[in-house]
């Protein structure tokens, strides 16, 4: 393992790391002091040059996103809002929870800096409903920061005033989609909105809004403190910096690991995750949370953990960094059925292909799993996924479609075997002898 700075997980594991006292011993809020002495444009420029990309899944350059906010004269008197997306609900993804639990002040500091850059007076951290205990810890941290004058009026005597609140969602996966998050925080049913208009122009309460992921904002203080050159020196040219990976599945050491982008996937699997269980072989890895296409062992061997390599090698995505490892004990039909149960349940029900299609795909998979499906069902399954992908209001449709498309293509034999055993009248799971 090469030596590299830990940016996000710097003080994780230090006793009391979530308290302001301990965090300040490790340099918390130095970056905020530095940033508030800079002009907003300078701060944005540093983030832009650092190449920091959104860690929520799409990997959009953060600095560029910040530049989409219209200039004050084109805002019609509306304020700018910053929303932190802490609705971390992607199956296999649990890094933001670690960030907020172990080092809440890093996120708060990141939001102070980002808000200074964007001219934000009020910002919100939108947490998924199940993160009630995380909200309590964040609220404690906010109270500490307010008490010290790091939040509120005239922070560090810079003249910049800023308020930060937490907001608990009601537990819908879709509220992690930025426009659904906006609907939800406004008090409406959490359903995505049509784009255009984009949130940067017309978001929460019809005002310009920037929505950033927890991990993205948490990386900002380090970049300000150490400079964009230092951040850019880590990782690859197009995917600079480090990223948190939530590693789960059939590995010896599940957990959240911070590694430089561009690290070989096999290294993450063997060096950080402790490899597979003894005597097992690798069957598949979902590299970026349940929504991205699954990868075969051959693809895993060639890929590095960065946005470009995974896409080039396997047509998959780095996504949110939910690294799900499946060994040869995994039944791919069962695995996909389990995944689709989630998507069929979480579809917001707004637009036709996703509302009807995700549940339909799940029904077919249930029949396939139970030995009741035919070849036609297999064709239909693939067809439905294609008919959902890219034809919906938000990306959820594609997220439900991509696992299906990749599983039935890359592990076709297992799906066909289920159909054949069903035709032969064998109980579910028993294969026809070749």
């Amino acid at each position, binding site marked *: 393992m090469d030596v590299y700075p830990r940016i996000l997980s710097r003080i994780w594991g230090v006793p009391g790391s979530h308290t302001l006292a301990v965090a300040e011993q490790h340099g918390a809020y130095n970056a905020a002091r530095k940033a508030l002495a800079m002009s907003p444009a300078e701060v944005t420029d540093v983030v832009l040059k650092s190449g920091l990309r959104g860690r929520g899944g799409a990997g959009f350059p953060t600095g560029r996103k910040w530049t989409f906010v219209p200039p004050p004269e084109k805002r019609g008197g509306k304020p700018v809002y910053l929303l932190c997306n802490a609705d971390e609900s992607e199956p296999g993804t649990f890094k933001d929870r670690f960030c907020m639990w172990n080092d809440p002040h890093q996120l708060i500091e990141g939001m102070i800096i980002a808000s200074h850059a964007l001219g934000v007076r009020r910002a919100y951290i939108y947490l998924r409903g199940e993160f009630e205990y995380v909200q309590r810890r964040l609220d404690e941290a906010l109270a500490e920061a307010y008490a010290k004058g790091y939040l509120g009026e005239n922070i560090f005597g810079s003249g910049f005033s800023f308020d930060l609140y937490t907001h608990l969602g009601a537990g*819908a996966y*879709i509220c992690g989609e930025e426009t659904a998050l906006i609907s939800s925080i406004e008090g409406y*049913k959490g359903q995505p909105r*049509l784009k*255009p208009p984009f949130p940067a122009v017309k978001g929460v309460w019809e005002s310009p809004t920037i929505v950033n992921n927890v991990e993205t904002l948490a990386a900002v203080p380090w970049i300000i403190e150490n400079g964009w050159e230092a951040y850019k020196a880590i990782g690859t040219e197009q995917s600079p910096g480090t990223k948190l990976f939530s590693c789960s599945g059939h590995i010896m050491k599940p957990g959240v690991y911070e590694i430089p982008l561009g690290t070989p996937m096999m290294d993450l699997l063997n060096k950080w995750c402790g490899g597979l269980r003894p005597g097992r072989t690798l069957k598949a890895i979902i590299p970026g949370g349940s929504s991205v296409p699954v990868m075969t062992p051959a693809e895993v061997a060639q890929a590095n953990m960065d946005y470009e390599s995974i896409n080039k090698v396997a047509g998959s995505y780095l996504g949110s960094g939910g690294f799900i490892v499946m060994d040869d004990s995994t039944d791919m039909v069962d695995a996909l059925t389990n995944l689709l149960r989630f998507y*069929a*349940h*979480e*579809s*917001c*029900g*707004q*637009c*036709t*292909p996703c*509302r*009807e*299609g*995700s*549940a*339909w795909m799940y*029904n*077919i998979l249930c*029949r396939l799993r139970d030995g009741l499906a035919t070849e*036609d*069902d297999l064709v*239909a399954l693939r067809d439905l996924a294609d*008919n959902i992908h*890219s*034809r*919906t*209001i938000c990306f959820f449709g594609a997220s439900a479609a991509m696992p299906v498309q990749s599983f039935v293509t890359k592990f076709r034999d297992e799906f066909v075997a289920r159909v054949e055993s069903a035709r032969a009248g064998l109980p579910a799971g028993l294969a026809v002898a070749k």
Partner: protein
Amino acid sequence: MPLVKVNGIAVEVPPGTNMIEAAKKVGVEIPHYCYHPHLSVAGNCRMCLVDVEAGGRGPDIACNMAATEGLAIRTDTPKVTQMRKSVMEFLLVNHPLDCPICDQSGECRLQDYYMEYGQHDSRLADAKMGKGKRQDIGDQIVLDAERCVQCSRCVRFSDEVTGTGELRLFNRSNQTQIGIFPGVRLSHQYQGNLADICPVGALTLKDFRFKKRVWWLKESESVCGGCATGCNILVHHQENEVYRFTPRRNDEVNKSWICDQGRLSYKDVTSLKRLTGAKVDGQRAELPEAANAAALLLKGAKVGVVFGAKATTEANWAAVKLVRARLPNARAYVIEGNDPDAFTYQDEILVDSDKTPNRFGAALTASQLGSVGDAEALKAALASGEVDALLVLHDDVVGRLGVATPKALVYVGTFKNATSSAAAVVLPAAHYIEQPGTWINRQGRVQRLRKTVAPAGDSVADYAAVDAIGRAFGGAVIPEMPAAIFQELAAGVKALNGLTLKGLGHGGQLITLFAPSPGVDQPGQAAPAK
């Protein structure tokens, strides 16, 4: 204005026009469920997905695509057809397919689009979702949630048009279900529009349920006579029987809406209160006979003519001509207010406080005779004996004034009321959907009526009834054909100069003599030309 292309055909449209409307301009229909020109864009049905050739990224939905210079879309590619087929398939996964017992059959978008974009070979193997059937959610509406395609038009209508917000799509995923909040009932006056805008059979009108298969019905254009708004309507009829009124789109008058009172007023056509035969002194008479009796009563008397705010402009014009030809000393009156049996509801959406459809038309024609008296003037003239005979067009003068009227009372009207009971001579006028003519609404818009079904009984067009009196005097006072009457009217009344019946078109023509302010009883001063 940006130049856009639809299937290679260039068209100029105002900036921001959505591509469904732009395509309509060049005759290309883009199928859709959730889009409605008078509601906000929801973009949820996905039926209007089109390919984008230039100026954007596709496929994308046409309803949320604003026309910008150089934007080019295609709707005729195999991919677009495939996308439509797929959306249709998804929409039908949980649809009950109960067309044989569904009132929407024949005007259902699922049916219509299925003929073009259906999968035809079904691959549905799983049980359908069960949802709430036959729910009584309001005075006018029944909801069947299984038939719903979750387009949210009704939700947006109740949020954006009536502002009452009773309806929502509850739950999520494929369990999403249209419904009404617990303990709430639709109580507004625009419920029927929900059945109209519902593209499928989820929301149906109680009044029309199980009455008629829509493919038997003919649609004829008309205008609602319920109030001064003059909502444009379609009269649905078969074999001289009227089954329903539905709104006809007119962006300047009623958009796509009509109130429930107006919608259900089709029942008046066959009301027992209709005057279907002429009467003289309470005895049934033939029309010419009654007209003779009327002429005898009016001849040489001190006649007051009450111009009708519910009569056509043509009938009022005939009265002008009758006065000029035969009753030179007659006085003209237009009586303000509504008949006692008029519906009292009013609002800021469509329903006007003035329940007469043609008050401007009555005032405009009456003023051709010089000064026009109001109710007080008429009362005074009757009391002093300056007027001892009345010719009344439609208005319930007796009911409105509450005073004794002279025995020499000639009434031309459609419905029985206090005036028809008091009248010595009654000439039955056709219902407004049974005759041609024009009305001038509260905006000063001249709108056209048409004969959609035959007049009931012996009733004739109201202008023909007035003309019959003229004939009894010795000669017709107006031409016979509606277009010729209107031509004369347009030539004789300054505000109407230059108009022709045909030129009124489907949406009517605005005249500028009157300040278009709702509820005005008397014509105002000439409004400055716009």
